[in-house]
């Protein structure tokens, strides 16, 4: 969803940092994207190349670190792995499971020169 807007959000954070650090070029951008966040990494990569064209980050590599999804199952009373946001508990099949991890959409770090 709205990967184009997110890519522009990424570019803004990158440009702000690069300007502050007086960088001449951005070589690499590292993102942390949770498995349960509503972001499609392939679409984001495509949009990133489009929005960075002509910017200080033109040609920069994009690395996406996928953070695995996790949820708290009330029936099991423990944290279980979660593949999808609105799925059942993989151990007991309960619907009473709340996502607790893997919802990140963060710019982690950039490599500049």
């Amino acid at each position, binding site marked *: 969803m709205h990967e184009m807007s997110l890519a522009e959000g990424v570019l803004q954070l990158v440009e702000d940092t690069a300007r502050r650090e007086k960088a001449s070029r951005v070589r690499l951008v590292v993102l942390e994207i949770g498995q349960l966040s509503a972001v499609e990494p392939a679409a984001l990569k495509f949009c990133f190349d489009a929005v960075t064209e002509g910017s200080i980050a033109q040609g920069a590599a994009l690395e996406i670190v996928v953070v695995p999804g996790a949820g708290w199952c009330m029936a099991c009373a423990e944290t279980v792995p979660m593949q999808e946001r609105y799925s059942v508990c993989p151990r007991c099949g309960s619907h009473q499971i709340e996502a607790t991890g893997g919802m990140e*959409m963060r710019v982690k770090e950039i490599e500049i020169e």
Partner: protein
Amino acid sequence: MCTVCGCGEGETRIEGGHEHTHVHADGTVHTHAHGHGYKPAHRHDHEPAVSGDLDYGTGPARAHVPGMSQSRMVQIEQDILSKNNAYATANRRAFDERGIFALNLVSSPGSGKTTLLVKTIELLKDKLTISVVEGDQQTSNDAERIRATGVPALQINTGKGCHLDGHMVGHAMARLQPADESLFLIENVGNLVCPAAFDLGEHHKVAILSVTEGEDKPLKYPDMFAAADVMLLNKCDLLPYLEYDADEAEANARRVNPNLTIFRVSASSGDGLSAWVSWIQSGLEAQRAKRSETVAALKRRVTELERQLAVK
């Protein structure tokens, strides 16, 4: 298409704004629109395309050792939506300080959002003050429909954008100047996907689902129904003519969000609207109470400080 600022890159237009042109130090010319109440705070200078000297001492590493790369890693650790969220937080604070109750109405196109808004306004406009923000890609048709009810409305055209963001709503607030202790309604762009992720500073997202859509829509587009606090099942007057299982639709919505408050309504017949309207009234009442509590607490604090000063 700009996430946080409608001014720079996108095609966002706020009604009544005027266009102006800048010439930058490096000769770049660009034109963009501002609303009248807007104080420009953003920069208009561009980085020069080529800088004159080669000074290795000013590189990011601030030193140059032959053979050693100037590149280095810089930690950012910031949420991609952090700028939008900061605008939304500021909007929410402004709403709370003034005792305003703000709702963000979201749905797919054609669910009857605008008709529902018009009916809601007609039922409430004699009891409370209302202002409306209308989001659409193009045209100001919806704002005109709202204005016909006698309530101030502002149209935001997002151009290529698929959602409203916190920054646009901040501008809209500055233009509309909503009254203290009033109702502020935002009709988002008809889109069941993107507006879920963008906080506008509202107190509740209200998702509208109409019975001419599928019962499984909450399962197909779960993010929106998870982000909403209220769901209105609209066009219920058509139920006798459709093979639509309203109970199943509600059950699907609750599977995604067990805390969802659901009202079955028909904007055209008016059925069920009274429960929805009283929900709005009690929400605004809570905002008013919270504000007067804050004001009372501040007054007590002032009295206490004055007393302490008098003792000294």
